């Protein structure tokens, strides 16, 4: 029988993760460790790339369709890299009542991406969070560690332009 390419397969997942997966594979019901493995991959790389999911499938011995089925089912898993500026919309009750949906729409329109996505230049990504605990400033958006409160849809283009300008200035 001919040697097949599995022998030469190079994996891009780091050694520590590969070791963890092979440890899982040795256990009973090894397929049940899939979510745990995906958590660790996301913690290490920030998101689940198709390449990494395929490697997880091969190393854990779980069909690739199962891996991507699980990854798309859970909100927690990101399928795209996080942007440099992580925009988190508060959808707690107060922010919601004070017009958070319109704020989200304004960001989506300005950046041309949906919630859960990242702009092509890798600068911005959008996501939803629970109550941030600053209801007095509703509606609130957090960009990385900075809280922006009392926003209106009209104020969004300037906010984004400000960040872009700062980036260009380096």
């Amino acid at each position, binding site marked *: *029988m*001919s*040697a*097949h*390419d*599995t022998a030469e397969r190079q994996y891009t997942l780091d050694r520590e993760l590969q070791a963890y997966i092979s440890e899982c594979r040795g256990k009973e019901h090894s397929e049940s460790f899939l979510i745990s493995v995906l958590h660790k991959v996301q913690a290490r790389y920030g998101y689940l790339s*198709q390449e990494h*999911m*395929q490697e997880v*499938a*091969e190393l854990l*011995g*779980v*069909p*690739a*369709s*199962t*891996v*991507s*089925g699980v990854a*798309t*089912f859970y909100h927690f898993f990101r399928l795209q890299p996080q942007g440099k500026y992580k925009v988190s919309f508060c959808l707690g009750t107060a922010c919601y009542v004070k017009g958070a949906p319109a704020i989200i729409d304004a960001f989506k329109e300005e950046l041309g991406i949906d919630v859960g996505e990242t702009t092509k230049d890798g600068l911005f990504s959008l996501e939803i969070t629970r109550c941030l605990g600053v209801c007095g400033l509703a509606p609130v958006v957090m960009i990385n560690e900075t809280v922006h409160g009392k926003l209106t849809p009209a104020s969004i283009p300037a906010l984004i332009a400000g960040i872009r300008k700062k980036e260009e200035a380096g």
Partner: protein
Amino acid sequence: MGTNMVHVTIDGRPVEVAAGTTIMQAAETIGIRIPRLCYHPKLSLEGACRICVVEVKGMRCFPASCATKVAEGMEITTGSPEIRQARRDIVELLLDNHPMDCQTCERDGNCELQNLAYQLGVRERHFEGKRKQFEIEDSSYSIVRNSEKCVLCQRCIRVCAEVQGVHNLSQHWRGATAVVTPAFEARMIESICINCGQCINVCPTAAWIEKSWTEDVWKALNDPSKHVVVHIAPSIRAAIGEGFGLPPGTPTSGKTAAALRRLGFDKVFDTNFSADLTIVEESNEFLQRLKNGGTLPLITSCSPGWVKFMEHFYPEFIPNMSTCKSPMSMHSTVIKTYYAEKAGIDPKDIFVVAVMPCTAKKYESRRPEFISPDGRPDTDAVLTTRELIWMIKAYGIDFLHLADEEFDHPLGYSTGAADIFGATGGVLEAALRTAVEMATGTELKEIEFAQVRGVDGLQEASLDVAGTTLKVAVANGLHNARDLLDRIKAGEEFHMIEIMACPGGCVGGGGQPYPQKGDYTIDFELYRKRAGALYDIDRDKEIRLSHKNPHVLELYREYLGEVGGHKAHELLHTHYQSRTPRGI
């Protein structure tokens, strides 16, 4: 009374069944077939659709009868007004998320959802609202997915994993955007799909259908510049009658040949001829390997679903594969070379249609190995049994009352060994008949090899041939093939193996007629009947050994030269390649 019996009442009747029986099965013992949708007797339980709910006294909610086992003293009601309303509501909700195009849908009349809606008395639509929207995915040569018609019963996911061992499909995303796709939502043509079409067979709706090539065939039939030639696979004659109401297992070679002439084909040939040809080449290949210490076991290569599966999952077995083309591809090649020359027709003007029990044959016909350097496929179009049934009906041909006709010669003549190709084990048996006679140089006393017959998933036999013990095996359904291949990898030795992708072999192919209302596919009783028709045809034939087919011998004499010789190799053999994505 054993202690493991359980006593319940169903609709007031006392019923005694073994512990572990489901409510659904228990109801069947008193003649009640509880309506169901996602349930399939040959697949694991899903419990997704909730159509089969029943009422159990003392239970707070309606349990799904497919997934609930009987318990002592249960009082079960299967048809109360509340239950009937609950089932109706579920079907209404499914329908209101479903395109309203029954009249123009390929499965009109054969759709389980449509049948259920009628059966349960859904006569109005109460929940009309926003429908899910998906593009039709038709990248594959064989299979088309229409996710708008999907009811998420997951039968396709289960058959792909549990019967075929492919695991190409799973549900992605959730809620209103949930959709069944290959890994990473890849297009079908870029996935590990082997094109077997079992997803189509188990799908209750038209979410999966074969890619129709009927338009190309109508067009060729109406093009006066084309010489349109058809050939039909062994298993077609055993199943096509079902499409016209004949009982399963009715052989219909004669009526099928007549119907094809009515459709306007210039020549009606039989793929069986090249099944004989395949056996002559493959037996020779086997004996050469046996004699010269070549790679064994030799594994058959007639099933294109199996071939692609091997290329994704077990490429280390490429040296074991018979290099013989499948009978379909051999036959199309012979038509465009030998026959073209003999009939004095430019092969460019010949349009070859193959009628196959198989969706993967569509894919096979478009493999680059089977396309001539000027871009013409050897097989121009492949129709499934279902598509041919539809064409015969569309034309208005009264199939049941057609008088039997013969196939055209020389490429319509076959021996009994060719007919049995359509049943699992048939290729191996046909090869053994020829190989044993060739090896021993004496005539077989017993032509039938009963040891390799039967529709079970895996069969093995040891045969004594001229003092040598030959170990052979037959696998159908690729899950069974995986088990066998893993054993070979672990060191078990075999001489020859037949593998067919579909359960039951070609009689259970992904292009065969939909089952009658209320029946299921992957029904081995049905496959046994279809196979029985083929064994009957074989038994009634005068010549039952491929190497004694006079027209095949003539082909070698006039055109090919030596069996396994240079020209035979050039025209009748092929090669394989390792494919990505790699199957897991």
